[in-house]
């Protein structure tokens, strides 16, 4: 099979959310001598981008994104050791710790944002729902996150977003992370009032904000 045909197979397996098919294609691509970085950059990543684009056009929905993300993660379990062996690594765009605040059990919006971030090349650590403020901070410190993304749906649970920022400040870690907020009752006005770094009304907004945040961070690191 030509490299081009192989990349197309990888691309299609991601779009189909076909974990087994993707793992098989990855193993065959490696056997054919395609570099792990090539498999990711020319086959899988364009597939993830296409899934994100189709979601934004309402052509596919959350299950398809979740399946694509699962397929990606399965393939990366094969590829990461190979990357290490070859002395290279796959650099993700950034690392995001995401969750729904304490007292709030709404997960769908958070899951959509998490999946959209994965499609855009971020590593996403999902803490789930009803997450204590300190747990966001502890996990972000543990994994060296770039972004903390906080979801809250209800007007009685959005104060917990402010609480997370206060926990970061108390640990002297506020400046290390870009804090993004979202969810039904949040707004730009609210984000500004609590000192968040960004507000996304939609999953697409959240992905764009995250991309800007890591670009800013990298620019800051270079300066």
């Amino acid at each position, binding site marked *: 099979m030509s490299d081009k045909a192989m990349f197309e197979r990888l691309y299609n397996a991601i779009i189909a959310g076909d974990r087994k098919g993707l793992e098989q294609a990855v193993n065959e691509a490696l056997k054919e001598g395609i570099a792990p970085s090539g498999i990711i950059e020319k086959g899988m990543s364009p597939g993830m981008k296409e899934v994100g684009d189709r979601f934004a056009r309402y052509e596919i929905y959350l299950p398809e994104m979740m399946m694509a993300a699962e397929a990606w993660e399965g393939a990366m379990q094969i590829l990461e050791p190979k990357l290490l062996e070859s002395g290279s690594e796959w650099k993700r765009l950034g690392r995001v710790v995401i969750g729904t605040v304490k007292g709030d059990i709404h997960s769908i919006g958070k899951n959509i944002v998490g999946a959209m971030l994965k499609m855009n090349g971020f590593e996403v650590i999902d803490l789930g729902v009803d997450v204590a403020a300190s747990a966001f901070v502890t996990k972000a410190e543990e994994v060296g996150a770039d972004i903390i993304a906080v979801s809250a749906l209800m007007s009685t649970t959005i104060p*917990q977003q402010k609480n997370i920022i206060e926990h970061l400040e108390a640990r002297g870690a506020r400046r290390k992370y870009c804090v993004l907020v979202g969810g039904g009752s949040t707004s730009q006005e609210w984000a500004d009032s609590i000192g968040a770094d960004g507000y996304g009304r939609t999953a697409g907004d959240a992905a764009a904000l995250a991309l800007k945040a890591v670009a800013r961070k990298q620019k800051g690191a270079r300066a």
Partner: protein
Amino acid sequence: MISFWTVVERALAGPICTERDFELNVFVPNLRKAIERHGIKYDSQNPVPADDDLADRVWEAGMEFLVETGVYCVDTERRILFRREEIEGALASGPCGRVFGEGKDARVMPRRVPEDKTLPWCSVGPTSSPLSSELYYVNLVKAHAENPLGDGITMPCLTMVNGQPIVGGSPLGIEGAIRAVLLTREGMRRAGRPGMPIVNGVTTAARAQEHIAAHRFGIRQTDALEIGTIHEMKVDFDTMNKVAYSLAAGNLIFAENGVILGGLSGGPAGVAVVTAAYNPVDLLILRGAVQHPFPTHFDLGVTSARDTIWARSVANQAVTRNSTLPVVNVGYSAAGPMTRMLFYEHCAWVIASVVSGGSVEVGASARGTALDYTSPVEPLLASEVAHAVAGMSRREANDIVKALLEKYESQLREPPTGQKYQECCDPVTGKPKQEFLELYLDVRREMADQFGIQFSSASPYL
């Protein structure tokens, strides 16, 4: 019907399953299978289909999906499964209309079917919209209660107590929930309708303990507590605790299901099937006296988009043709108060709901989430429209809804913000500004002239 305690036993002893497996290996494939098996397809050209066969296929798909999938209990990580006979038993013994409210304000919640001439139930109120002030709270409730077409009140959501933001789960949550009930009762008293039922008790309460506390300060047995499932096909103990308490207290329950279009259910066909599947879940687990659906668009955050209207219409038809549990549809519109678009959005989803067999809860503006962006005026017109279209054919309604969608759907992503309550109404007297009343009358005339909608003279603003 099997008892609530049998359901609790199943939550504690049902098949173990991780949440991820439930979502991707149970829910999604079972739903896809059901949609395919019954050939359910979204038709964007007909947001209000007049197809009884489609409605019945959606119902059948929903029942098969429910039997194969069950409901996931997130606290025990187990599936609560029901046999088809148990579902049929629930449907056979479920309520088919209840009296809500008391004294002269008591009203019957009717069971309706598609194209039914029976007037729909109209819940009026701010539909849980957040408010910054207790004065606005009382005045808004009063204004809604003065709508003679309003059968029940939906409470707004209080956001502050003693100058502090309400934090759910804290003592402020308890106090906020109690105060919300007391303020709602006061607003209705000032309107001269003290027996009007609260139908979304208790909005400011996030957790079961807040519901229970508020219940002791003014929720009556003729009011309804609103209890919802978790997206999608999930429950937790907090939800089931609310049910356990409501059963013991003898309260009626509005069983709420807001299926997310774009979420696990996928597109409009999946949303319709899952909404239908929720109907017996609302009986078996939530013990509802009413099914209270609001399929919501994941990206736009509204129920007034074309695809959510289609899903709502089809699900309503499926449910009301096959179950006696009354349906009261809730709506979330994108535009803010005192905009022409908000009137159009409310009218579109209300018409689709009523001709498809539902009653309505009118309705939230600014997606129901922007602080103080709510008014009593647009819901008044929506309730007038709801009464006026009872008995209208689905075909005629389809044409009207399409025409209304053309007026606003391009603006759903960036809708006009409109004005806050305290800007479009006098916050002390509660009266709408003259300019606002003129807009209301103008849209009312437009609805009559363009679509032939015949209004009664019940409006307090004529």
